[in-house]
């Protein structure tokens, strides 16, 4: 019998992309490893999927933890007036991101995505959990580093970066 599963990691990343792009309209979002960094535009986000861990197993399911590194890039030289020219802007971006995730710490899609529904009776429980379009709970930005380690390709004088660690839990029923 075929194994039935939900692509939780992908669904979580899709949802995260969706809420960031809605809030930061016009800011491109890419998915690129820092080692493969390319200067794409004046500012953009890069979402780097991290680990998926088992937090707890239950009789009827499991609680999993997912992690995504959110890197924000700003092409701007670090001038003498670094505080007003760069840091204030970067810090505002970071705080806005934290508040956004706090507001969405229990995230459900606003639109039912019926295309994702399973139609077989064998996965009826999954159908109901899909209907409420649950994506995650306990979503949070664990920390933000305004001077993260840089890859060789990111090592540019006019590039400002912050990295936020996004964590969330997903309850999966079996």
């Amino acid at each position, binding site marked *: 019998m075929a194994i039935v599963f939900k692509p939780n990691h992908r669904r979580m990343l899709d949802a995260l992309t969706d809420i960031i792009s809605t809030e930061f309209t*016009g800011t491109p979002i890419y998915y690129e490893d820092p080692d493969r960094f390319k200067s*794409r*535009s*004046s*500012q953009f986000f890069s979402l780097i999927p991290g680990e998926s861990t088992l937090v707890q197993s239950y009789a009827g399911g499991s609680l999993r933890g997912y992690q995504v590194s959110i890197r924000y890039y700003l*092409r701007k030289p670090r001038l003498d007036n670094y505080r*007003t*020219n760069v840091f204030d802007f970067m810090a505002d971006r970071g705080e806005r991101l934290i508040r956004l995730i706090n507001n969405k710490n229990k995230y459900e899609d606003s639109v039912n995505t019926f295309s994702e529904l399973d139609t077989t009776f064998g996965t009826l429980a999954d159908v109901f959990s899909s209907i409420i379009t649950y994506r995650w709970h306990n979503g949070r930005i664990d920390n933000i580093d305004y001077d993260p380690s840089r890859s060789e390709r990111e090592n540019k004088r006019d590039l400002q970066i912050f990295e936020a660690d996004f964590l969330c839990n997903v309850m999966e029923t079996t």
Partner: protein
Amino acid sequence: MSTYLETICTQEDMQSILPSLGEYNRNTVLTTWAIYSGNVYKSASSGRVDILYRDGNELTLAANLAAVDSDGEYFYDSSKDVVYLFSSASPSTSHTIESGKDFTDTVTEARNRASELVRSMVAKPIYKRKGVGYQGETTRNYDEVLILSAAAIAVALMVRPFDSELATEIEEKYNNEGDPPGILQLIRDGFIKLHHEFSADRSQGLIIPVSVNSSTTGSIVDISGSPSRTDMLRIQITTGGTLAYGTASPVKYKVLASDDTGVQTTTIVEGETLTGGYDTLGMGLRFKGSQGVFTSGDYWFVDAISGTPETQNPIRTSTARRY
């Protein structure tokens, strides 16, 4: 001011070299905003602002500061280097404001600069390749080596401010004075020929199939001899048939050459048999047809250059003797 020259490459040529060209626009985020008055914000030392974008959307340029009176309008005071923006929400915390230039203008500027650089680097005449049957396979108005070189340099000009390594990587294949030399250096030194430059194939007679029936399987495959004059000859099949070794050939041909009324306007060979050996072409030349079917009306051009043409080939070694 004006120019009679035109750009050698197009934006499509540039994108064929770097598909992600669109990511190398010159926008820059304006991070510092202060309230000027009411909902009008100002950003000092903004640098030249041709276009202002808010969250990726182009905003409306007002005629002067006083006209900045509704959401999304801006004015750039170049004498003070300050941009003023009317925004209902704070541009610092609620939006991303970028100043920049229209991307098409940036591309056009790069294409123009690259074309001028190519003309300077090649240091020999660049003629347009235009006219019926005169273009190459790409049917472009310039030699493909020039188009690609100009496109690569244009891309490098756009990329270099943001990624010098990538720009060098793109450009060095086409423009490199070091070793190995770039394509432009090879053109300049005569190793790569432009369409109008003489090369060995043209001095021996260049065969160009112009009108060949789809059922024709034979062809003109070789030219020998030295032409007595420069001309564009036409070999035309007048009686079709199959040319096969061991059998008398039924195929007849004629040759047309130029006179003082035009090119290919006078018949210099007529009613000759295409034997499969080296047959008479005229003007001191002979040609060879391959085995196969020839159809009446098939014709080929032979571009023949007489004398010792200026080849522009580089001098590799030279010896001088004193007696």
